[in-house]
């Protein structure tokens, strides 16, 4: 029996079936258009050719996928550590914030990716350069969200902590950091998306080649060789990585917040 709220409820089935159906329909339409117009594969391959390229070039694409994944997650991890540490440092005193926040803002509004060529000159290897670029891009949304979160603590809560003689570390640990969690999660989600974009764009400008290359390089390479099915296959892997990062950061956010924060609560009416 289809219950209203069971695992296989009508709503749940439709929730999955509808988007999957739309995607399938689009692929079928894509296939029909390509076939009907006799479009050559070097302009627009049909979805089956893309799938074939994915299988055939797996030995090239999979290592590239791993490289891009590694750079993205490493840079995101470093940005989380660096951004959190710097945010906590910034909120320690009004003077520190006055001194350093403008620099953070200037760096944030500068399109960091524009200094990628510069970083490529200074960094010892291409991989380090990509890492630095992706780190810088993911760093600022994490920093600015966390600073805002750490500063927007309820005044009554601060009074409470002062009343019970809490020291600075206790206030940070038991009040400011938990209160900033929703803001931190926003920064994490934005930073996760941006670190992948930055890893790709930085590799475009790096134009490196050979064994250590990521998906972005494989993508460019496929374009030069007019191997468009492989280009689409690489694109597909990049978007799969993006979806995975989105799902992972959303899940972490849900895990941390679902018990208490409004953003993760189901409305019960």
């Amino acid at each position, binding site marked *: 029996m289809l219950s209203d709220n069971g695992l296989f409820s009508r709503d749940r089935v439709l929730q999955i079936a509808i988007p999957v159906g739309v995607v399938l329909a689009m692929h079928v339409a894509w296939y029909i258009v390509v076939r009907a117009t006799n479009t050559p594969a070097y302009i627009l391959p049909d979805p089956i050719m893309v799938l074939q390229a994915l299988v055939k070039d797996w030995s090239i694409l999979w290592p590239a996928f791993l490289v891009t994944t590694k750079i993205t997650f490493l840079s995101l991890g470093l940005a989380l550590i660096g951004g959190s540490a710097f945010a906590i440092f910034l909120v320690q005193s009004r003077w520190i914030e006055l001194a350093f926040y403008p620099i953070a803002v200037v760096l944030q509004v500068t399109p960091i990716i524009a200094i990628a060529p510069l970083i490529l000159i200074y960094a010892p290897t291409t991989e380090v350069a990509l890492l630095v670029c992706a780190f810088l891009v993911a760093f600022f949304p994490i920093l600015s969200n966390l600073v805002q979160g750490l500063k927007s603590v309820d005044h009554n*809560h601060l*009074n409470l902590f002062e*009343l*019970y*003689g809490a020291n600075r570390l206790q206030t940070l640990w038991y009040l400011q950091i*938990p209160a900033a*969690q929703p803001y931190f999660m926003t920064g994490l989600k934005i930073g996760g998306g941006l670190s992948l974009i930055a890893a790709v764009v930085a590799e475009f400008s790096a134009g490196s080649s050979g064994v250590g290359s990521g998906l972005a390089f494989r993508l460019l390479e496929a374009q030069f060789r007019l191997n468009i099915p492989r280009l689409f296959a690489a694109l597909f892997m990049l978007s799969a990585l993006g979806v995975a990062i989105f799902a992972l950061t959303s899940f972490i956010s849900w895990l941390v917040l679902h*018990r*208490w*924060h409004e953003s993760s609560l189901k409305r019960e009416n």
Partner: protein
Amino acid sequence: MGTRERGRATVPVALNTELEKETPVITPVKSTRPLLTMRSVSKNFSNGTQALSDVSLTVHAGEFVSLLGPSGCGKSTALRIIAGLGGVSSGEVDWPSSQIGARGTPEGDISFVFQEPTLLPWRTVVDNVYLPLQLARVSRKDAMPRIEEALATVGLTDFGKAYPRELSGGMKMRVSIARAMVTKPKLLLMDEPFAALDEITRQKLNEDVLGLWRNTGVSVIFVTHSVFESAYLSSRIVVMKARPGRIHEDFAVNEGVDRDGEFRTSENYRRTCERVSHSLAGAMHDAGGH
């Protein structure tokens, strides 16, 4: 830090509860031991508002003092000064019989219940009540009996694992009171704690606070703008007036009166209300009437 523990943790908790259970309801004997003294306290804010002007007040151990007055007469400011949140412009607050902490107040001896429950939404009820002890570096294991006792006194034993969002307004306020009582304070400061609640919940909580005061012997300073609330709860009422905030009248109420279930419909209560209303009307009139 350690001052809070001294002379408190040494009292066996179990013994305490036993005593409370066996002793029938007692109205505390009026003590003459001063707990705190405000001497000519004035407070000016930087924007020029004179919130308090020359306020002198002595609160004795075991008293239930209501601060009553129109809004803006400095009730909250007075309470905050007593709690050591924000200093005085002139005058002083003296604690003759307490150990003074780093902020010039006996930290472990004072608790505060704000108008909002001010619970930490990411903590369960138990962990919210644990907070004051945690900040005093009591381990959770050692704190547990005291937390359970505090929750029992406000009737929330079964809600320890709930998060604040799962509780009604009245229950949140009870948690806030449990958190205040878990340190076994000598002085409980309450700033219009029930103003946001409906009348029925409010009456129930008033009864609970009165019971708490009787059973624990804690001194209470209770800020309210409700004549009825102050008349029901207090052993002494301090009526304040505004612009600048100062004391209008200070008088004892309910002396020797048994405040049981019938009290609210009694002649005694009606007379107290009249007495308080009259005083409050005077305070408003003197202040320019509004």
